[in-house]
């Protein structure tokens, strides 16, 4: 996973609530066996017209937002399907940070695993950032993960919260499987105790 330290980039406004993962990447594009290449289909139904041409009204089809690396949205971003193809599509498009008043739990988790930083902030602060994002060429904001601040175009700083363990993994670009395997002894102890305490516990074995 790529490290996330400081990001200075164009922020795109998506002033909608309940942007579901079907909207971020429709099911018909989930037939891949890879993590990459989904960016072209990100927000497919909003981004393209029925004939396949770009919808000029959609924000990410306009300059400077084609190069946006930050999204600002309303409540419950990423609800619905657990598909990690949603953060993969965002990442492949170039998005490294999503700021919203609230996120669906699974999307929130999935984002961290891919080096995308989801930031929860109160609605009024998101509204202010939404206004910043609407300033076209001046819509650049900075996200400093180490200091846990967002720096607005006018230089004002907004602090944000993040779980310390997740922050550590993001800053260092660490794989959480390695972190867990450092505690493999504890897993083995659990499994030994399970066998002793719940001897009836069945395993799945097919006869053939």
């Amino acid at each position: 996973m790529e490290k996330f330290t400081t990001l200075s980039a164009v922020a795109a406004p998506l002033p909608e609530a309940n942007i579901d993962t079907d909207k971020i990447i429709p099911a018909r594009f989930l037939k891949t066996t890879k993590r990459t290449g989904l960016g072209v289909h990100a927000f497919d139904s909003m981004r393209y017209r029925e004939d396949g041409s770009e919808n000029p009204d959609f924000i990410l089809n306009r300059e400077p937002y084609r190069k946006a690396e930050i999204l600002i949205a309303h409540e419950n971003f990423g609800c619905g399907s657990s598909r990690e193809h949603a953060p993969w599509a965002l990442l492949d498009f170039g998005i490294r940070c999503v700021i919203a008043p609230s996120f669906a739990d699974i999307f929130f988790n999935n984002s961290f695993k891919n080096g995308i930083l989801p930031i929860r902030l109160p609605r009024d602060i998101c509204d202010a950032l939404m206004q910043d994002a609407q300033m076209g060429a001046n819509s650049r904001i900075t996200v400093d993960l180490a200091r846990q601040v967002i720096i607005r175009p006018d230089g004002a700083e907004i602090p944000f919260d993040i779980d310390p363990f997740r922050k550590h993994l993001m800053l260092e670009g660490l794989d959480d499987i390695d972190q867990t395997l450092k505690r493999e002894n504890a897993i083995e102890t659990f499994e030994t105790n399970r066998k002793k305490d719940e001897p009836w516990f069945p395993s799945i074995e097919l006869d053939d």
Partner: protein
Amino acid sequence: MSSPRTLFDKIWASHVVDTLPDGTAILYIDRHLLHEVTSPQAFEGLRLAGRKLRHPDATIAVVDHNVPTSDRTKPIEEPESRNQIETLERNVKEFGVPYFPLLSASQGIVHVVGPEQGISLPGMTIVCGDSHTSTHGAMGSLAFGIGTSEVEHVMATQTILQKPAKNMRISVDGELTPGVTAKDVVLAIIGKIGTAGGTGHVIEFAGSAIRGLDMAGRMTVCNMAIEAGARAGLIAPDDTTFDYVRGRRFAPKGADFDAAVDYWRTLPSDEGAVYDTEIALRAEEIEPCLTWGTSPETVLPISGTVPDPASETDEAKRAQLQRMLDYMDLKAGQKIAGTPVDVVFIGSCTNSRIEDLRAAAVIATGRKVAHDVRAMIVPGSGLVKAQAEQEGLDRIFLDAGFEWREAGCSMCLGMNPDRLTPGQRCASTSNRNFEGRQGPGGRTHLLSPAMAAAAAVTGVLTDARELAV
């Protein structure tokens, strides 16, 4: 004496392997369910890192999302779907994972197969790379959907990293009136608390109306907990649960079963357990429900009228309501009953069990699918299909003009060829009505199997109670 604990607290506590300094738990996972869409990248990650799959004997794989529901003796036409299925077959072989292949009688939707085979049991932690894993909570287990990176984490470590959720109890007390089903109950709940109402919580569904549901009904309710934004939904295991589990293929047998039941009886929430959030509904007040818009919270009783955006004070919400009306081609204030449908889909992990098919068959008996309506029945598994055929339900459906298809996720998400075309309106027993969910431009109304069957035979959205004998 320890303080009273909830069902969730108990399952959680009994699965914590270790706790990291910031409170993140390493949680042991008892059952890992795999399917073809969200597993290939995880297997690839495992392979690249040279890691083993820690517990094939706690893992089961099926194909469901991509599979055609038509004649399976023919090769799969869509090359990408075929590739995903073949990739899963290579992976399960390489890593030694138990697998129900496409032509197995046990094949089906992962959330139908787990309980049906006795793989999902009370008190377990169960995960799958699919948000509707919440279904298995009906067994009295902690079951939730995960992303593909987490799938890989579970493959490698048999654990997951998670912070404890908050406890929510939704009590439905009283008695449901005739013709009101589990689907109506869960739609009413989502209509009440909204699609983010359960965020950060595990919902325990409780109350006499929930206890009175059979296992299929409980699965329908827990299935849609994710549509209320919850991490998981669960229901206390009781004799209904144990009777369901007894004798299933992978369930404990004989003395082992008795020992398991003794343990499972300790799981229900203690008297006086405290919940972070409590919601109550009266069963008698729930009518047959359906959705009118493109979010599962846009719930109406079948007697209801489509809301008017003008009455919404928040500007962004008003715009969103208007957009939904436009997308769904409905008018503010119109009665939802009587709206013509083009397609009826009875299936999905929400409503494709034998009890669901029986409920649809009651309405279909002696009637015909309306002219110009395409009506499909997609059983949840090969076993459900065989059971239905043994009961003669297939004849009832075929005589009425329904399509009788093979098991899979099908038109719930349209990854296989079963899709709506732009503008088509569908009465669907599935779980999501998002824009384009069932096919680009398709319009979805979520409802129960009886209501779907009623729409099929009348050609319009209809109160199924009017057709009940």
